[in-house]
């Protein structure tokens, strides 16, 4: 929240009056970057306090996409709630589903069979690539580089085709079920995934060629929106933002879930915690995801895809918190069961919500155009912020 005392030196009102200046010369201007705005990635309202073009502080007003998902969760059975979680972070729906299914599986004390976990990893990492591609396209578009948008969306189509063949939906996939998978992988799944990987590897190089050493890009993103590692940890910021500030922490390595420990991959980190580093971290993450999918697709085990889960799910009373590394950060589910078929409380810990708190700190002293860049680099999805 903006603290008026922390920023500018005090201005003497009498001095202003004496020199007959108009109110437009006053040092502070409060401007509304309203909920309808092409660059706020959804319905986000940002109230900026400006000194000319420089931001003194800002306040985010959210809740325009609040749909009461947590309340709905208390009135649906566990299986019925599964499609709702896709709609929160609608860009990375598969990840949301993974987190939810794993949490309920913990409550039920079942574990998905190895084949199911493998396929889950493949689909989740494909989703990570798709989410980062969308991020790259829209972030570059906000900054003014229009071309990457077309490239990334065109390449993202291949992933969405795979999802469509697998579960029928492109965006809100509802791909996983509690206990495993509903659908067996279609014939040709491994081949198509491998084709996608071969198709995609040169594409990351293409995106990098467009942006990484592009002078305009570097000038627009270097030293913009820098945040230190201590601030990130204090604010609870996770995901690529935290990693770009230098903290080598990824839930897939720290608290592995869904057989990630069987795969070999690196955690890219950045140095300065600015927008450029976050860009580099996400590009590197895409490469690491390709690496994971490669390993997973070669080693797909045979076996059942669904564990023994009762049709009527009544987990024993208790509470479980489980989180996964979603493309945006730590996505956590805290589910409390009272022994009945419907959860007593479903709490979703959204990474975008917590990351968005950092916006104020990151934008102090930046220009308004940089605010757009920082909102883009935080990679927020309002569906998740508001639920």
């Amino acid at each position, binding site marked *: 929240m903006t603290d008026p005392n922390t920023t500018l030196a005090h201005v003497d009102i009498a001095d202003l009056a004496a020199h007959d200046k108009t109110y437009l010369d006053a040092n502070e201007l409060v401007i509304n970057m309203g909920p309808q705005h092409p660059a706020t990635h959804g319905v986000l309202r940002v109230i900026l306090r400006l000194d000319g073009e420089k931001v003194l502080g800002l306040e985010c007003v959210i809740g325009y996409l609040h749909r009461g998902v947590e309340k709905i969760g208390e009135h649906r059975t566990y299986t019925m709630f599964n499609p709702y979680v896709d709609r929160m972070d609608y860009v990375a729906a598969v990840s949301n589903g993974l987190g939810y299914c794993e949490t309920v599986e913990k409550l*039920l*004390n079942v574990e998905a069979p190895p084949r199911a976990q493998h396929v889950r990893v493949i689909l989740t990492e494909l989703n990570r690539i798709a989410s980062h591609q969308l991020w790259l396209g829209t972030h570059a578009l906000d900054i003014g580089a229009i071309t990457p948008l077309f490239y990334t969306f065109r390449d993202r189509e291949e992933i969405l085709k795979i999802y469509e063949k697998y579960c029928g939906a492109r965006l809100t996939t509802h791909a996983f079920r509690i206990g495993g998978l509903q659908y067996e992988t279609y014939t040709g799944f491994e081949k198509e995934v491998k084709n996608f990987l071969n198709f995609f590897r040169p594409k990351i190089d293409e995106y990098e060629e467009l942006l990484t050493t592009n002078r305009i890009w570097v000038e627009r993103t270097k030293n913009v929106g820098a945040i230190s590692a201590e601030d990130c*940890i204090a*604010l*609870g910021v996770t995901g690529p933002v935290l990693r770009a500030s230098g903290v080598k922490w990824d839930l897939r390595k720290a608290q592995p879930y869904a057989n990630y420990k069987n795969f070999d991959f690196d955690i890219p980190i950045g140095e300065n915690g600015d927008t450029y580093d976050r860009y580099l971290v996400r590009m590197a993450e895409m490469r690491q995801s390709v690496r994971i999918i490669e390993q997973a697709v070669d080693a797909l085990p045979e076996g059942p*895809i669904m564990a023994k*889960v009762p049709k009527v799910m009544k987990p024993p009373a208790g509470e479980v918190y489980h989180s996964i590394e979603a493309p945006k950060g730590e996505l956590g589910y*805290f589910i409390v069961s009272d022994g009945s078929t419907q959860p007593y409380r479903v709490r979703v810990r959204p990474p975008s919500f917590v990351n968005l*708190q950092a916006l104020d700190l990151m934008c102090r002293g930046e220009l308004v155009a940089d605010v757009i860049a920082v909102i883009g680099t935080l990679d927020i999805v309002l569906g998740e912020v508001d639920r």
Partner: protein
Amino acid sequence: MPDEIKPPAPPPPDGDAKPTADEPAILGGVKATPSGSVQADDKLPAEKPAAPAVAPPAKPATPTATSNATPVAAKPAAPAKAPVPTPTPWDSPMIAKLKGSYGSGIEPLTYAGQNYMVVDRSLIPEVLQVLRNEEQFDYCVDITALHYPQREKQFEVVWVLYSFARNERIRVKTQIADGATLPSSVPIWAGANWLEREVFDMFGIKFDGHPDMKRILLPDGWKGHPLRKDYGILQQDNEWVQINLGIESGQ
């Protein structure tokens, strides 16, 4: 909008061939009969209770298979009675230290492999401070609340904390009565700001000392706290809707 829908009928017997692209899985085990009506099919390839019930990983405080002990019989036989998992006490050097300082105010338990402690309300800002400063729980993952209207202390506020140094995650819970307030954790973790605002917004629990205690997701003038159990699923603040949107709250 039905609140509760009964899931489809009897558990299926052993399925046959697993569904491939040629034989797509039948969703929900329902398919159309020649007469046009939709009926649950007895021979379902959808669920495969085949291979051994996956042995649950050894976790403290969880018993052997609870629900997976359900025998896959053609008729809905009563599931094998398994012991209901309950939270069991948890000890560690950190807990020993905390118990030494605070004694009975802290009750450490563990459930499903996850550790948590139920802390007395009076100890609250202190225990959190100690956890952050001395025990290195520097990352406040989440703050949320639960509402148990039957209890005398209706609300349970939960902090989920994680320590990077120890790679350990714990929960701290405390129980407060309706109308009671809690000291804000913002001085301890800056990220608690919006999390506490959301708890206030959804449950009405105020945090003393919070720099900006106001609603975050719902509009500022909204009356009512939706995640409380006495707030209906279809309930809205009709007054706010009428004034601000100019419509009869339309469902």
